[in-house]
């Protein structure tokens, strides 16, 4: 680990007033770029009666219309593209579990910007040229692997493009290549830690010094466990494909919230019910506006993450605002084993397969891995005295759900009227994972 403190010191420690000035200048240009090149957003602005000339700086942000995930899906595959396709060099994509995927386009400028955000995150956890970064996020359409891979290159680290899975190979490369920084989901980090422990390694025999873990919720307790088993410092990272990918915000040595890369992304907190902006420090839904993206510049994107922003000075010297770990969702999305799942998807499968809509999803965590159970009430006429048929129905439902959402639950058929109801409606989700501290 080197002595380097910042990847881009001038920007990362810029006085707050100057950051706000920079954001205002960039916002004016970004809004004009979007208005002139994205008919979909121009229509939204016209409907709201806002013109680019109404936006003089970040104080006018509230005038702009929101973009919802549904807008991005409706504009599939390239309705939000703001440059000619020929100027793009890459796409990334969401998992598309709620229907159509969101395709994010990148020019080389956009890739550089994103990778620099990841480079800042790596330097913030102590990485430098002589470090060996093991990237065990998935590579491909998912932004996790490519983002940290690019950031690691920018810092000049030796990069191990492991992708996810194949634990034995992960551990062999970690030991043989003496990896010092691990990037993956927190649950996979915990799993790798357990596997090393089983093989008899003590924390001081593991070469890792730091880890950057994101893409799913995790608790302080998980952080402590991972830090103990791997003998490292574990850091959080936040990002979303719609905005760029991992690195929208990252944790520093203070481990007290994630610095948002404010020179590229403007954060607001709004009341999720009314859409009204809330003062900094209030709890509400996190909304992001891209400030200098070319191909896919999304304005006022509603993340649905419930969060708090903190402008207090940070001991690391960075001046960029910090976001707390998301405390929940303003919609009913669940993140199960890193996959986004909505109860409505489960419901759609039940209706399509002729089952009752009285169901309950139960989430738990065993050995750092999510358990995913779906209980469904059997309709009286579906019962034919056979255990075999019940088991067969459970299996076929589980398969249909796996096809729909990408991960398969354990399905349990239960007798009619046995799922608890409140006010006549069954409680759809029981999440016993305690993911939020």
């Amino acid at each position, binding site marked *: 680990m080197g002595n380097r403190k910042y990847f881009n010191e001038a920007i990362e420690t810029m006085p707050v007033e100057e950051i706000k000035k920079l954001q205002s200048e960039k916002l004016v240009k970004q809004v004009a770029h979007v208005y002139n090149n994205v008919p979909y957003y121009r229509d939204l602005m016209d409907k709201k009666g806002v013109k680019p000339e109404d936006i003089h700086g970040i104080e006018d942000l509230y005038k702009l219309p929101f973009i919802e995930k549904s807008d991005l899906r409706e504009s599939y595959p390239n309705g939000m593209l703001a440059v000619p396709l020929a100027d793009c060099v890459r796409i990334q994509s969401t998992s598309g579990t709620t229907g159509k995927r969101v395709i994010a386009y990148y020019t080389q400028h956009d890739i550089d910007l994103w990778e620099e955000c990841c480079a800042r995150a790596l330097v913030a956890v102590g990485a430098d040229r002589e470090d060996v970064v093991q990237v065990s996020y998935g590579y491909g359409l998912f932004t996790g692997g490519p983002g940290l891979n690019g950031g690691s290159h920018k810092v000049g680290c030796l990069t191990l493009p492991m992708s996810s899975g194949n634990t034995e190979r992960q551990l062999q490369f970690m030991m043989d290549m003496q990896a010092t920084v691990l990037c993956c989901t927190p649950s996979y980090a915990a799993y790798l830690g357990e596997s090393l422990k089983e093989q008899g390694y003590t924390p001081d025999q593991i070469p890792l010094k730091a880890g950057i873990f994101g893409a799913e919720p995790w608790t302080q307790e998980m952080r402590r466990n991972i830090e103990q088993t791997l003998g490292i410092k574990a850091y959080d990272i936040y990002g979303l494909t719609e905005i760029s990918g991992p690195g929208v915000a990252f944790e520093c040595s203070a481990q007290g919230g994630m610095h948002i890369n404010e020179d590229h992304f403007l954060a607001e907190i709004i009341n999720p019910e009314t859409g009204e902006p809330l003062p900094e420090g209030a709890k509400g839904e996190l909304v992001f506006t891209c400030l200098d993206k070319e191909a896919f510049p999304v304005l006022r994107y509603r993340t649905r993450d419930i969060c708090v922003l903190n402008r207090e000075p940070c001991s690391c010297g960075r001046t960029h605002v910090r976001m707390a770990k998301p405390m929940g969702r303003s919609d009913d999305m669940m993140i199960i084993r890193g996959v986004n799942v909505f109860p409505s998807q489960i419901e759609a499968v039940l209706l399509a397969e002729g089952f009752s809509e009285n169901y309950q999803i139960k989430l738990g965590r065993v050995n750092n891995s999510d358990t995913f159970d779906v209980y469904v009430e*059997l309709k009286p006429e579906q*019962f034919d005295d056979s255990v075999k048929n019940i088991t067969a129905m459970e299996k076929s439902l589980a398969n249909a759900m796996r096809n729909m959402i990408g991960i398969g639950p354990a399905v349990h058929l*239960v007798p009619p009227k046995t799922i608890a109801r409140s006010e006549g409606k069954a409680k759809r989700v029981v999440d016993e994972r305690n993911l939020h501290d």
Partner: protein
Amino acid sequence: MAIKQLSVFVENKQGSLHDITDALAKANIDLRSMCVADTSNYGIVRIIANDPDKAKELLDKDGHAANVRLVNAFAVPDQPGGLAKVLSLLEGHGVNIDYMYALITSEEGKAYSVMRTGNTEETDKILIENGIELLDESKLH
């Protein structure tokens, strides 16, 4: 002749069985035999009663998942090897037995059993052709 069996899909929890039997008792339904199959989530209660159709109607009204189907019921001499003889006969005919349970009667010297097989009608025929005594539904009323 195959006889009618009532089965009910119940939760695997305390009180489920009592709810069912209580409902049937109130409707004056006489239970002749009962068997419970359980898994970790649910149970199936199988009942031989004097009026299975009425019982089902009652349970349906209460929102239970109930089913009436034909099962084979037969008597064997109450002595060692009595049942084995019948099972060996069915095995010889390639009949697969899904489940089986005993039926209590006051008749001395005989043991009655109820079974569900892959093919109830064929099983019935095999039993008749081989002179196995079948339980007549009229005996249950």
